[in-house]
Protein backbone atom coordinates (compact mmCIF):
# COMPACT_ATOMS: atom_id res chain seq x y z
CA UNK A 1 0.00 0.00 0.00
CA UNK A 2 1.36 3.44 -0.82
CA UNK A 3 1.79 5.87 2.09
CA UNK A 4 -1.02 8.34 2.75
CA UNK A 5 1.13 11.19 1.49
CA UNK A 6 4.34 10.91 -0.44
CA UNK A 7 6.22 13.96 -1.63
CA UNK A 8 8.88 13.57 -4.28
CA UNK A 9 11.39 16.20 -5.31
CA UNK A 10 9.04 19.10 -4.55
CA UNK A 11 10.30 22.51 -5.66
CA UNK A 12 8.49 25.80 -5.18
CA UNK A 13 10.05 28.97 -6.52
CA UNK A 14 9.03 32.61 -6.31
CA UNK A 15 9.50 34.61 -9.46
CA UNK A 16 9.80 38.08 -7.98
CA UNK A 17 10.84 41.11 -9.96
CA UNK A 18 14.08 41.37 -8.05
CA UNK A 19 15.17 37.78 -7.98
CA UNK A 20 14.31 34.13 -8.21
CA UNK A 21 13.64 32.91 -4.67
CA UNK A 22 13.91 29.18 -4.22
CA UNK A 23 11.70 28.63 -1.18
CA UNK A 24 11.46 24.85 -1.50
CA UNK A 25 14.37 23.22 -3.30
CA UNK A 26 13.56 19.55 -3.65
CA UNK A 27 11.81 17.82 -0.77
CA UNK A 28 11.20 14.13 -0.23
CA UNK A 29 9.12 12.83 2.63
CA UNK A 30 6.12 10.68 3.43
CA UNK A 31 3.35 10.55 6.03
CA UNK A 32 1.48 7.36 6.87
CA UNK A 33 -2.00 6.94 8.25
CA UNK A 34 -2.00 7.60 11.99
CA UNK A 35 1.50 9.04 11.87
CA UNK A 36 2.82 12.49 12.72
CA UNK A 37 5.68 13.92 10.72
CA UNK A 38 7.17 17.09 12.18
CA UNK A 39 8.68 19.57 9.75
CA UNK A 40 11.11 21.60 11.84
CA UNK A 41 13.08 24.68 10.99
CA UNK A 42 13.68 28.35 11.65
CA UNK A 43 11.87 31.20 9.91
CA UNK A 44 12.52 31.32 6.22
CA UNK A 45 13.46 27.65 5.89
CA UNK A 46 10.47 26.96 3.64
CA UNK A 47 8.35 24.88 6.00
CA UNK A 48 5.17 26.93 5.62
CA UNK A 49 5.61 27.15 1.85
CA UNK A 50 5.86 23.36 1.84
CA UNK A 51 2.46 23.14 3.52
CA UNK A 52 0.87 25.57 1.09
CA UNK A 53 2.43 23.71 -1.83
CA UNK A 54 0.80 20.45 -0.73
CA UNK A 55 -2.60 22.10 -0.92
CA UNK A 56 -1.67 23.97 -4.08
CA UNK A 57 -2.25 27.28 -2.36
CA UNK A 58 1.11 28.87 -3.12
CA UNK A 59 0.53 32.63 -3.45
CA UNK A 60 1.66 34.62 -6.47
CA UNK A 61 4.35 35.06 -7.76
CA UNK A 62 5.18 31.62 -6.41
CA UNK A 63 4.78 28.38 -8.33
CA UNK A 64 5.43 24.70 -7.82
CA UNK A 65 8.01 24.09 -10.52
CA UNK A 66 8.70 20.42 -10.01
CA UNK A 67 7.86 17.31 -8.09
CA UNK A 68 5.03 14.99 -7.24
CA UNK A 69 2.57 15.22 -4.35
CA UNK A 70 1.11 11.74 -4.09
CA UNK A 71 -1.96 11.58 -1.86
CA UNK A 72 -3.15 7.98 -1.64
CA UNK A 73 -1.11 7.37 -4.76
CA UNK A 74 -2.72 10.15 -6.76
CA UNK A 75 -0.61 13.13 -7.87
CA UNK A 76 -2.35 16.25 -6.59
CA UNK A 77 -0.41 18.40 -9.03
CA UNK A 78 -2.25 16.78 -11.92
CA UNK A 79 -5.76 17.24 -10.55
CA UNK A 80 -8.05 19.81 -12.17
CA UNK A 81 -8.86 22.76 -9.81
CA UNK A 82 -12.41 21.42 -9.27
CA UNK A 83 -11.22 18.13 -7.84
CA UNK A 84 -8.47 19.78 -5.86
CA UNK A 85 -11.13 21.90 -4.16
CA UNK A 86 -12.98 18.75 -3.13
CA UNK A 87 -9.85 17.34 -1.51
CA UNK A 88 -8.93 20.56 0.28
CA UNK A 89 -10.78 20.91 3.58
CA UNK A 90 -12.32 17.51 2.99
CA UNK A 91 -9.60 14.89 2.85
CA UNK A 92 -6.74 17.22 3.68
CA UNK A 93 -7.43 19.91 6.26
CA UNK A 94 -5.15 22.64 7.52
CA UNK A 95 -4.91 24.69 10.69
CA UNK A 96 -2.83 27.80 11.04
CA UNK A 97 -0.88 29.55 13.76
CA UNK A 98 -3.20 32.47 14.37
CA UNK A 99 -6.79 31.19 14.70
CA UNK A 100 -8.28 34.64 14.23
CA UNK A 101 -7.05 34.76 10.64
CA UNK A 102 -8.94 31.59 9.75
CA UNK A 103 -12.20 32.63 11.39
CA UNK A 104 -14.58 35.18 9.93
CA UNK A 105 -15.17 37.85 12.59
CA UNK A 106 -18.73 38.64 11.48
CA UNK A 107 -20.21 35.14 11.59
CA UNK A 108 -21.19 33.09 14.63
CA UNK A 109 -18.95 30.07 15.10
CA UNK A 110 -21.83 27.61 14.66
CA UNK A 111 -22.46 28.99 11.19
CA UNK A 112 -18.79 28.83 10.26
CA UNK A 113 -18.44 25.18 11.22
CA UNK A 114 -21.85 24.47 9.70
CA UNK A 115 -20.78 25.98 6.39
CA UNK A 116 -18.01 23.39 6.03
CA UNK A 117 -20.52 20.60 6.63
CA UNK A 118 -23.09 22.04 4.24
CA UNK A 119 -20.52 22.51 1.46
CA UNK A 120 -18.65 19.25 1.78
CA UNK A 121 -21.26 16.91 3.23
CA UNK A 122 -24.48 18.38 1.88
CA UNK A 123 -26.16 18.68 5.28
CA UNK A 124 -29.04 21.15 5.73
CA UNK A 125 -28.88 24.04 8.16
CA UNK A 126 -30.36 22.25 11.16
CA UNK A 127 -28.29 19.08 10.71
CA UNK A 128 -25.16 21.15 10.25
CA UNK A 129 -25.74 23.04 13.47
CA UNK A 130 -26.28 19.80 15.38
CA UNK A 131 -23.09 18.35 13.92
CA UNK A 132 -21.25 21.56 14.84
CA UNK A 133 -22.27 21.14 18.47
CA UNK A 134 -20.95 17.55 18.39
CA UNK A 135 -17.64 18.71 16.98
CA UNK A 136 -17.24 21.47 19.57
CA UNK A 137 -17.89 18.85 22.25
CA UNK A 138 -15.19 16.63 20.81
CA UNK A 139 -12.59 19.38 20.85
CA UNK A 140 -13.37 20.10 24.48
CA UNK A 141 -15.34 23.34 24.30
CA UNK A 142 -17.57 23.54 27.38
CA UNK A 143 -21.29 24.29 26.91
CA UNK A 144 -21.04 23.92 23.15
CA UNK A 145 -24.78 24.41 22.70
CA UNK A 146 -24.45 28.02 23.87
CA UNK A 147 -21.05 28.64 22.36
CA UNK A 148 -22.18 28.07 18.75
CA UNK A 149 -24.04 31.37 18.97
CA UNK A 150 -20.93 33.34 19.88
CA UNK A 151 -18.64 35.34 17.64
CA UNK A 152 -14.90 34.61 17.40
CA UNK A 153 -13.96 37.76 19.36
CA UNK A 154 -15.92 36.47 22.36
CA UNK A 155 -13.60 33.46 22.67
CA UNK A 156 -10.12 33.20 24.14
CA UNK A 157 -7.17 32.31 21.92
CA UNK A 158 -7.20 28.70 23.07
CA UNK A 159 -10.94 28.36 22.46
CA UNK A 160 -10.57 29.89 18.99
CA UNK A 161 -7.90 27.36 18.11
CA UNK A 162 -10.27 24.61 19.28
CA UNK A 163 -12.95 26.02 16.96
CA UNK A 164 -10.48 26.00 14.07
CA UNK A 165 -9.59 22.39 14.87
CA UNK A 166 -13.29 21.51 14.97
CA UNK A 167 -13.72 23.05 11.51
CA UNK A 168 -10.71 21.15 10.20
CA UNK A 169 -12.11 17.88 11.56
CA UNK A 170 -15.62 18.49 10.27
CA UNK A 171 -15.16 16.28 7.23
CA UNK A 172 -13.01 13.55 8.81
CA UNK A 173 -9.83 14.44 6.95
CA UNK A 174 -7.31 11.72 6.34
CA UNK A 175 -4.45 14.18 6.59
CA UNK A 176 -4.18 17.20 8.86
CA UNK A 177 -1.61 19.89 8.16
CA UNK A 178 -0.98 21.92 11.31
CA UNK A 179 1.23 24.97 10.78
CA UNK A 180 2.54 26.16 14.18
CA UNK A 181 -0.84 25.34 15.78
CA UNK A 182 0.19 26.33 19.31
CA UNK A 183 2.80 29.02 18.79
CA UNK A 184 0.40 31.85 19.63
CA UNK A 185 -0.90 30.12 22.77
CA UNK A 186 0.19 30.07 26.40
CA UNK A 187 2.10 27.03 27.55
CA UNK A 188 -0.72 25.46 29.59
CA UNK A 189 -3.15 25.95 26.68
CA UNK A 190 -0.54 24.62 24.28
CA UNK A 191 -0.33 21.44 26.35
CA UNK A 192 -4.11 21.07 26.20
CA UNK A 193 -4.25 21.58 22.42
CA UNK A 194 -1.37 19.19 21.73
CA UNK A 195 -3.02 16.56 23.91
CA UNK A 196 -6.26 17.11 21.98
CA UNK A 197 -4.53 16.72 18.59
CA UNK A 198 -2.88 13.56 19.89
CA UNK A 199 -6.19 12.02 20.98
CA UNK A 200 -7.88 12.94 17.72
CA UNK A 201 -5.02 11.47 15.73
CA UNK A 202 -5.27 8.20 17.67
CA UNK A 203 -9.06 7.96 17.55
CA UNK A 204 -9.36 8.79 13.88
CA UNK A 205 -6.13 7.35 12.50
CA UNK A 206 -5.42 10.68 10.90
CA UNK A 207 -2.00 11.39 9.39
CA UNK A 208 -0.54 14.69 10.62
CA UNK A 209 2.04 17.00 9.15
CA UNK A 210 3.09 19.17 12.07
CA UNK A 211 5.03 22.31 11.20
CA UNK A 212 6.83 23.80 14.16
CA UNK A 213 10.00 25.38 15.43
CA UNK A 214 9.53 24.07 18.98
CA UNK A 215 11.68 21.03 19.63
CA UNK A 216 9.78 20.30 22.84
CA UNK A 217 6.53 19.98 20.92
CA UNK A 218 8.28 17.75 18.39
CA UNK A 219 9.67 15.45 21.08
CA UNK A 220 6.25 15.04 22.66
CA UNK A 221 4.11 14.43 19.59
CA UNK A 222 6.01 13.47 16.44
CA UNK A 223 6.75 10.00 15.11
CA UNK A 224 9.15 11.16 12.41
CA UNK A 225 11.08 14.40 12.05
CA UNK A 226 12.38 16.32 9.06
CA UNK A 227 14.83 19.09 9.91
CA UNK A 228 14.69 21.81 7.24
CA UNK A 229 17.09 24.56 6.34
CA UNK A 230 16.98 26.82 3.28
CA UNK A 231 14.29 24.84 1.48
CA UNK A 232 15.94 21.46 1.94
CA UNK A 233 15.68 18.58 4.38
CA UNK A 234 18.94 18.30 6.30
CA UNK A 235 18.03 15.28 8.39
CA UNK A 236 15.08 12.90 8.32
CA UNK A 237 14.55 10.12 10.82
CA UNK A 238 12.26 8.67 13.50
CA UNK A 239 11.88 11.06 16.44
CA UNK A 240 13.95 8.97 18.86
CA UNK A 241 16.86 8.84 16.45
CA UNK A 242 16.86 12.59 15.79
CA UNK A 243 17.03 13.42 19.50
CA UNK A 244 19.29 10.51 20.45
CA UNK A 245 21.90 10.52 17.76
CA UNK A 246 21.49 13.49 15.44
CA UNK A 247 24.14 13.36 12.74
CA UNK A 248 23.76 16.59 10.81
CA UNK A 249 25.67 19.51 12.33
CA UNK A 250 22.62 21.76 11.89
CA UNK A 251 20.39 19.36 13.85
CA UNK A 252 23.07 19.03 16.50
CA UNK A 253 23.33 22.82 16.69
CA UNK A 254 19.58 23.28 17.09
CA UNK A 255 19.42 20.70 19.87
CA UNK A 256 22.40 22.21 21.66
CA UNK A 257 21.22 25.81 21.60
CA UNK A 258 17.93 25.47 23.46
CA UNK A 259 17.72 26.08 27.19
CA UNK A 260 16.32 23.01 28.97
CA UNK A 261 14.38 23.03 32.21
CA UNK A 262 16.37 21.46 34.99
CA UNK A 263 19.64 21.53 33.05
CA UNK A 264 20.85 24.98 33.89
CA UNK A 265 24.19 25.72 32.32
CA UNK A 266 26.34 28.81 32.39
CA UNK A 267 26.11 29.46 28.68
CA UNK A 268 24.03 28.32 25.75
CA UNK A 269 25.74 26.90 22.70
CA UNK A 270 25.15 28.87 19.59
CA UNK A 271 25.26 28.02 15.94
CA UNK A 272 26.36 30.61 13.45
CA UNK A 273 23.53 32.99 12.97
CA UNK A 274 22.53 33.42 9.40
CA UNK A 275 19.67 31.40 7.97
CA UNK A 276 20.17 32.19 4.32
CA UNK A 277 17.11 33.19 2.37
CA UNK A 278 16.60 31.62 -1.00
CA UNK A 279 18.14 34.48 -2.93
CA UNK A 280 21.69 34.14 -4.31
CA UNK A 281 22.25 30.76 -2.77
CA UNK A 282 25.73 29.44 -3.14
CA UNK A 283 25.86 26.53 -5.53
CA UNK A 284 26.46 23.98 -2.80
CA UNK A 285 24.87 23.26 0.52
CA UNK A 286 23.77 26.47 2.15
CA UNK A 287 24.88 25.10 5.46
CA UNK A 288 28.41 24.87 4.08
CA UNK A 289 29.46 28.32 5.15
CA UNK A 290 28.69 27.60 8.77
CA UNK A 291 29.27 23.91 8.91
CA UNK A 292 31.86 23.04 11.51
CA UNK A 293 32.75 19.75 9.82
CA UNK A 294 35.74 19.73 7.47
CA UNK A 295 34.84 18.39 4.05
CA UNK A 296 36.96 20.34 1.69
CA UNK A 297 36.86 18.18 -1.44
CA UNK A 298 33.12 18.52 -1.87
CA UNK A 299 32.85 22.20 -0.94
CA UNK A 300 30.54 23.97 -3.35
CA UNK A 301 28.59 20.85 -4.25
CA UNK A 302 25.19 20.12 -2.74
CA UNK A 303 25.33 16.87 -0.76
CA UNK A 304 22.51 14.40 -1.42
CA UNK A 305 20.15 13.17 1.28
CA UNK A 306 21.88 9.86 2.11
CA UNK A 307 20.48 6.95 4.09
CA UNK A 308 23.14 6.25 6.73
CA UNK A 309 21.15 3.60 8.61
CA UNK A 310 17.67 2.25 7.86
CA UNK A 311 15.21 5.14 7.97
CA UNK A 312 17.82 7.76 8.92
CA UNK A 313 18.68 10.23 6.16
CA UNK A 314 21.29 12.99 6.33
CA UNK A 315 22.26 15.67 3.84
CA UNK A 316 25.93 15.98 4.55
CA UNK A 317 29.17 14.79 2.93
CA UNK A 318 30.99 13.89 6.09
CA UNK A 319 28.31 12.61 8.46
Amino acid sequence: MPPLLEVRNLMTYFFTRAALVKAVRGLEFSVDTGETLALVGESGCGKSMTALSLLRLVPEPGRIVEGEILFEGQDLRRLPPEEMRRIRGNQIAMIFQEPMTSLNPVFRIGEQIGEVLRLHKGLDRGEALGAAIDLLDQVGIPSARQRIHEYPHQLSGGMRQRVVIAMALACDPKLLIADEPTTALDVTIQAQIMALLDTLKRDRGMGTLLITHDLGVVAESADKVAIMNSGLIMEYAPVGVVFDRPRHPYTQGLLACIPRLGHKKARLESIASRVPVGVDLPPGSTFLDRCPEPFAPQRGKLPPLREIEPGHFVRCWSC
Partner: protein
Amino acid sequence: MEPLLEVRNLRKSFSVSSGPLGSKRHSLKAVDGVSFSLAPGETLGLVGESGSGKSTAGKLILRLLDADEGQVLFQGEDILKRSRKEMRPLRRQMQMIFQDPYSSLNPRMRIGEILGEPLKLHGLAKGNAVSDEVMRLLATVGLAEEHYYRYPHEFSGGQRQRIGIARALAVRPSLIVADEPVSALDLSIQAQVINLLQDVQKEFGLTYLFIAHDLSVIEHISDRVAVMYLGRIVELASAEALYKNPRHPYTEALLNAVPIPDPALRGERYLMQGEIPSALNPPSGCPFHPRCPYAQALCSTTPPPLADQGHGHLASCHFSGDVGRHRRPVPGP
Protein backbone atom coordinates in the same frame (compact mmCIF):
# COMPACT_ATOMS: atom_id res chain seq x y z
CA MET B 1 23.49 44.39 50.54
CA GLU B 2 21.00 47.17 49.92
CA PRO B 3 18.61 46.32 47.10
CA LEU B 4 18.88 48.34 43.91
CA LEU B 5 15.16 48.14 43.40
CA GLU B 6 12.42 47.42 45.87
CA VAL B 7 8.79 47.19 44.84
CA ARG B 8 6.16 47.34 47.56
CA ASN B 9 2.50 46.56 47.18
CA LEU B 10 2.28 47.87 43.63
CA ARG B 11 -1.24 48.18 42.24
CA LYS B 12 -2.76 49.25 38.95
CA SER B 13 -6.33 48.98 37.69
CA PHE B 14 -7.65 49.80 34.29
CA SER B 15 -11.17 50.95 33.63
CA VAL B 16 -12.87 48.81 31.01
CA SER B 17 -16.27 49.43 29.50
CA SER B 18 -18.73 46.89 28.22
CA GLY B 19 -22.42 46.57 27.51
CA PRO B 20 -24.37 48.58 24.93
CA LEU B 21 -22.35 51.64 23.91
CA GLY B 22 -19.91 50.93 26.71
CA SER B 23 -22.47 51.78 29.35
CA LYS B 24 -21.03 49.51 32.03
CA ARG B 25 -17.69 50.38 33.59
CA HIS B 26 -15.59 47.75 35.24
CA SER B 27 -12.29 47.93 36.99
CA LEU B 28 -9.67 45.44 35.84
CA LYS B 29 -6.97 44.81 38.42
CA ALA B 30 -3.94 44.25 36.20
CA VAL B 31 -1.39 44.40 39.01
CA ASP B 32 -2.83 43.60 42.39
CA GLY B 33 -0.32 44.11 45.18
CA VAL B 34 3.07 43.06 43.85
CA SER B 35 6.17 43.22 46.07
CA PHE B 36 9.75 42.07 45.47
CA SER B 37 13.27 43.34 45.62
CA LEU B 38 16.24 43.15 43.32
CA ALA B 39 19.86 43.15 44.50
CA PRO B 40 22.51 44.87 42.38
CA GLY B 41 23.76 42.53 39.64
CA GLU B 42 20.88 40.13 40.13
CA THR B 43 18.44 38.81 37.52
CA LEU B 44 14.87 38.35 38.61
CA GLY B 45 12.67 36.49 36.14
CA LEU B 46 9.00 37.45 36.04
CA VAL B 47 7.01 34.67 34.44
CA GLY B 48 3.32 34.19 33.75
CA GLU B 49 0.78 33.60 31.02
CA SER B 50 -0.83 36.31 28.92
CA GLY B 51 -2.98 38.53 31.10
CA SER B 52 -1.02 37.79 34.27
CA GLY B 53 0.07 41.43 34.57
CA LYS B 54 3.78 40.85 34.12
CA SER B 55 4.27 43.44 31.37
CA THR B 56 2.16 46.01 33.23
CA ALA B 57 4.33 45.48 36.31
CA GLY B 58 7.43 46.18 34.22
CA LYS B 59 5.94 49.38 32.85
CA LEU B 60 4.87 50.60 36.29
CA ILE B 61 8.38 50.14 37.62
CA LEU B 62 9.82 52.29 34.83
CA ARG B 63 6.93 54.73 35.18
CA LEU B 64 5.87 54.22 31.59
CA LEU B 65 2.51 53.78 33.33
CA ASP B 66 1.47 55.45 36.55
CA ALA B 67 0.72 53.15 39.47
CA ASP B 68 -2.44 53.58 41.55
CA GLU B 69 -0.78 52.54 44.77
CA GLY B 70 2.48 51.24 46.15
CA GLN B 71 6.11 52.18 46.20
CA VAL B 72 8.98 51.68 43.79
CA LEU B 73 12.19 52.28 45.68
CA PHE B 74 15.16 52.78 43.39
CA GLN B 75 18.40 53.06 45.38
CA GLY B 76 16.23 53.65 48.41
CA GLU B 77 14.18 56.50 46.97
CA ASP B 78 10.49 56.20 46.06
CA ILE B 79 10.45 57.21 42.42
CA LEU B 80 6.65 57.25 42.23
CA LYS B 81 6.85 60.52 44.19
CA ARG B 82 9.00 62.22 41.57
CA SER B 83 7.43 64.57 39.04
CA ARG B 84 7.71 63.77 35.33
CA LYS B 85 10.52 66.30 35.02
CA GLU B 86 12.37 64.95 38.01
CA MET B 87 12.14 61.48 36.44
CA ARG B 88 14.24 62.42 33.43
CA PRO B 89 17.70 62.14 34.99
CA LEU B 90 16.64 58.82 36.53
CA ARG B 91 15.54 57.35 33.19
CA ARG B 92 19.19 57.16 32.22
CA GLN B 93 19.68 54.57 34.92
CA MET B 94 16.59 52.49 34.11
CA GLN B 95 16.27 51.21 30.57
CA MET B 96 13.94 48.87 28.77
CA ILE B 97 14.38 46.26 26.05
CA PHE B 98 11.24 45.37 24.12
CA GLN B 99 9.92 42.20 22.55
CA ASP B 100 9.56 43.42 19.01
CA PRO B 101 12.82 45.06 18.10
CA TYR B 102 11.36 46.38 14.86
CA SER B 103 8.44 48.39 16.22
CA SER B 104 10.72 49.91 18.84
CA LEU B 105 13.18 51.30 16.28
CA ASN B 106 12.37 54.37 14.20
CA PRO B 107 12.38 53.16 10.58
CA ARG B 108 13.51 56.55 9.28
CA MET B 109 16.59 56.81 11.42
CA ARG B 110 19.96 55.27 10.68
CA ILE B 111 21.41 53.01 13.36
CA GLY B 112 24.07 55.60 14.13
CA GLU B 113 21.38 58.18 14.91
CA ILE B 114 19.25 55.74 16.90
CA LEU B 115 22.18 54.94 19.15
CA GLY B 116 23.58 58.49 19.21
CA GLU B 117 20.35 60.18 20.25
CA PRO B 118 20.19 58.96 23.86
CA LEU B 119 23.85 59.93 24.31
CA LYS B 120 23.13 63.49 23.21
CA LEU B 121 19.86 63.75 25.12
CA HIS B 122 21.47 62.79 28.39
CA GLY B 123 24.58 64.85 27.68
CA LEU B 124 26.86 61.83 27.79
CA ALA B 125 28.80 62.72 24.65
CA LYS B 126 29.20 65.58 22.22
CA GLY B 127 30.44 66.02 18.65
CA ASN B 128 32.84 63.36 17.43
CA ALA B 129 32.72 61.58 20.74
CA VAL B 130 29.14 60.52 19.92
CA SER B 131 30.10 58.50 16.87
CA ASP B 132 33.10 57.02 18.67
CA GLU B 133 30.83 55.88 21.47
CA VAL B 134 28.28 54.47 19.00
CA MET B 135 31.02 52.47 17.28
CA ARG B 136 32.06 51.09 20.64
CA LEU B 137 28.43 50.12 21.37
CA LEU B 138 28.08 48.38 18.02
CA ALA B 139 31.18 46.34 18.79
CA THR B 140 29.88 45.49 22.27
CA VAL B 141 26.72 43.92 20.88
CA GLY B 142 28.46 42.12 18.04
CA LEU B 143 27.59 44.42 15.15
CA ALA B 144 30.05 45.89 12.66
CA GLU B 145 31.08 49.51 12.03
CA GLU B 146 29.50 49.38 8.58
CA HIS B 147 26.09 49.01 10.25
CA TYR B 148 26.31 52.62 11.44
CA TYR B 149 24.74 54.02 8.26
CA ARG B 150 22.10 51.34 7.77
CA TYR B 151 18.35 51.56 8.46
CA PRO B 152 16.43 49.15 10.76
CA HIS B 153 14.72 47.37 7.85
CA GLU B 154 18.08 46.20 6.57
CA PHE B 155 18.60 44.03 9.64
CA SER B 156 17.37 40.60 10.65
CA GLY B 157 15.31 40.13 13.81
CA GLY B 158 18.29 39.04 15.86
CA GLN B 159 20.40 41.98 14.70
CA ARG B 160 17.57 44.38 15.49
CA GLN B 161 17.41 43.03 19.00
CA ARG B 162 21.16 43.64 19.27
CA ILE B 163 20.45 47.26 18.30
CA GLY B 164 17.73 47.41 20.97
CA ILE B 165 20.23 46.16 23.52
CA ALA B 166 22.89 48.63 22.35
CA ARG B 167 20.41 51.49 22.69
CA ALA B 168 19.58 50.46 26.25
CA LEU B 169 23.29 50.18 27.07
CA ALA B 170 24.11 53.57 25.49
CA VAL B 171 23.22 55.55 28.59
CA ARG B 172 25.06 53.17 30.96
CA PRO B 173 22.04 52.15 33.02
CA SER B 174 22.13 50.12 36.21
CA LEU B 175 18.71 48.48 35.80
CA ILE B 176 17.29 46.96 32.62
CA VAL B 177 13.72 45.76 32.33
CA ALA B 178 13.60 43.31 29.42
CA ASP B 179 10.06 42.45 28.31
CA GLU B 180 10.06 39.19 26.29
CA PRO B 181 13.36 40.13 24.65
CA VAL B 182 13.90 36.80 22.87
CA SER B 183 10.42 35.42 22.27
CA ALA B 184 10.17 36.76 18.72
CA LEU B 185 13.50 35.25 17.70
CA ASP B 186 14.45 31.96 16.07
CA LEU B 187 16.02 29.26 18.24
CA SER B 188 19.61 29.74 17.19
CA ILE B 189 19.29 33.52 17.37
CA GLN B 190 17.57 33.31 20.73
CA ALA B 191 20.60 31.52 22.18
CA GLN B 192 22.94 34.21 20.87
CA VAL B 193 20.87 37.07 22.25
CA ILE B 194 20.57 35.39 25.66
CA ASN B 195 24.35 34.91 25.70
CA LEU B 196 24.82 38.54 24.75
CA LEU B 197 22.50 39.70 27.55
CA GLN B 198 24.52 37.63 30.02
CA ASP B 199 27.84 38.94 28.67
CA VAL B 200 26.87 42.61 28.95
CA GLN B 201 25.40 41.99 32.39
CA LYS B 202 28.78 40.75 33.57
CA GLU B 203 30.69 43.47 31.77
CA PHE B 204 28.63 46.41 33.04
CA GLY B 205 27.33 44.99 36.32
CA LEU B 206 23.70 45.26 35.20
CA THR B 207 20.62 44.28 37.14
CA TYR B 208 17.86 42.65 35.13
CA LEU B 209 14.14 42.32 35.53
CA PHE B 210 13.55 39.70 32.87
CA ILE B 211 9.90 39.31 31.85
CA ALA B 212 9.02 36.25 29.78
CA HIS B 213 6.50 33.48 29.35
CA ASP B 214 9.06 30.80 28.45
CA LEU B 215 10.00 28.91 31.61
CA SER B 216 13.09 27.32 30.10
CA VAL B 217 14.49 30.71 29.13
CA ILE B 218 13.56 32.18 32.52
CA GLU B 219 15.17 29.34 34.44
CA HIS B 220 18.31 29.66 32.36
CA ILE B 221 18.87 33.38 32.81
CA SER B 222 17.42 34.13 36.26
CA ASP B 223 18.89 33.96 39.74
CA ARG B 224 15.42 34.15 41.26
CA VAL B 225 12.01 33.72 39.65
CA ALA B 226 8.64 35.27 40.47
CA VAL B 227 5.54 33.56 39.06
CA MET B 228 2.54 35.81 38.43
CA TYR B 229 -1.11 34.82 38.18
CA LEU B 230 -3.97 37.30 37.78
CA GLY B 231 -1.93 40.30 38.85
CA ARG B 232 -0.29 38.71 41.89
CA ILE B 233 2.96 36.98 42.62
CA VAL B 234 2.03 33.44 43.67
CA GLU B 235 5.53 32.09 44.12
CA LEU B 236 9.00 33.58 44.43
CA ALA B 237 12.15 31.54 44.90
CA SER B 238 15.59 30.86 43.51
CA ALA B 239 15.42 29.49 39.96
CA GLU B 240 16.74 26.14 41.17
CA ALA B 241 14.33 25.74 44.09
CA LEU B 242 11.37 26.80 41.98
CA TYR B 243 12.11 24.20 39.35
CA LYS B 244 13.08 21.37 41.70
CA ASN B 245 10.51 21.95 44.35
CA PRO B 246 7.61 24.19 43.33
CA ARG B 247 5.43 25.17 46.30
CA HIS B 248 2.49 26.64 44.39
CA PRO B 249 0.17 24.43 42.30
CA TYR B 250 0.17 26.96 39.45
CA THR B 251 3.96 26.82 39.18
CA GLU B 252 3.77 23.04 39.19
CA ALA B 253 1.17 23.14 36.41
CA LEU B 254 3.28 25.54 34.35
CA LEU B 255 6.33 23.32 34.73
CA ASN B 256 4.28 20.26 33.76
CA ALA B 257 3.05 21.98 30.62
CA VAL B 258 6.48 22.81 29.22
CA PRO B 259 7.18 20.31 26.45
CA ILE B 260 10.44 18.50 27.19
CA PRO B 261 12.75 18.10 24.18
CA ASP B 262 13.39 14.44 24.89
CA PRO B 263 11.08 11.82 23.33
CA ALA B 264 12.20 9.25 25.93
CA LEU B 265 10.32 11.22 28.60
CA ARG B 266 7.07 11.23 26.69
CA GLY B 267 4.12 9.95 28.62
CA GLU B 268 1.00 10.70 30.53
CA ARG B 269 1.08 13.82 32.61
CA TYR B 270 -1.32 15.78 34.68
CA LEU B 271 -2.73 18.61 32.56
CA MET B 272 -4.25 21.67 34.16
CA GLN B 273 -7.81 22.17 33.01
CA GLY B 274 -9.46 25.41 32.01
CA GLU B 275 -8.01 28.78 31.24
CA ILE B 276 -6.84 31.80 33.18
CA PRO B 277 -10.03 33.51 34.43
CA SER B 278 -10.89 37.05 33.43
CA ALA B 279 -9.21 39.65 35.60
CA LEU B 280 -12.49 41.60 35.39
CA ASN B 281 -14.16 38.99 37.51
CA PRO B 282 -11.48 37.14 39.47
CA PRO B 283 -12.49 34.12 41.56
CA SER B 284 -13.08 34.61 45.26
CA GLY B 285 -10.53 33.48 47.83
CA CYS B 286 -7.42 32.11 46.17
CA PRO B 287 -7.60 33.23 42.51
CA PHE B 288 -6.23 29.85 41.40
CA HIS B 289 -8.71 27.65 43.25
CA PRO B 290 -11.09 26.86 40.32
CA ARG B 291 -8.23 25.20 38.40
CA CYS B 292 -6.35 23.79 41.34
CA PRO B 293 -6.12 20.02 41.92
CA TYR B 294 -5.29 20.59 45.61
CA ALA B 295 -8.12 23.04 46.37
CA GLN B 296 -10.24 22.58 49.50
CA ALA B 297 -13.15 24.52 50.94
CA LEU B 298 -10.91 27.10 52.58
CA CYS B 299 -9.43 28.10 49.21
CA SER B 300 -12.65 29.48 47.78
CA THR B 301 -13.16 31.84 50.71
CA THR B 302 -9.80 32.96 52.03
CA PRO B 303 -7.00 34.28 49.86
CA PRO B 304 -3.69 32.78 51.02
CA PRO B 305 -0.88 35.22 51.85
CA LEU B 306 2.49 35.08 50.09
CA ALA B 307 4.33 33.36 52.93
CA ASP B 308 7.81 32.03 53.51
CA GLN B 309 7.84 28.24 53.14
CA GLY B 310 11.42 28.02 54.37
CA HIS B 311 14.77 29.35 53.09
CA GLY B 312 13.12 32.44 51.62
CA HIS B 313 10.95 30.37 49.28
CA LEU B 314 7.70 32.34 49.07
CA ALA B 315 4.41 30.84 47.96
CA SER B 316 0.79 31.84 48.42
CA CYS B 317 -0.98 28.55 48.96
CA HIS B 318 -2.87 27.17 51.96
CA PHE B 319 -1.72 23.66 51.16
CA SER B 320 1.71 24.25 49.71
CA GLY B 321 2.98 21.19 51.58
CA ASP B 322 0.84 19.03 49.26
CA VAL B 323 2.22 20.50 46.05
CA GLY B 324 4.40 18.08 44.07
CA ARG B 325 2.01 15.14 43.91
CA HIS B 326 0.99 15.99 40.35
CA ARG B 327 4.46 16.75 39.09
CA ARG B 328 5.37 14.85 35.96
CA PRO B 329 8.62 12.86 36.09
CA VAL B 330 11.34 15.44 35.67
CA PRO B 331 14.47 15.00 33.61
CA GLY B 332 17.52 14.82 35.85
CA PRO B 333 20.90 16.10 34.85
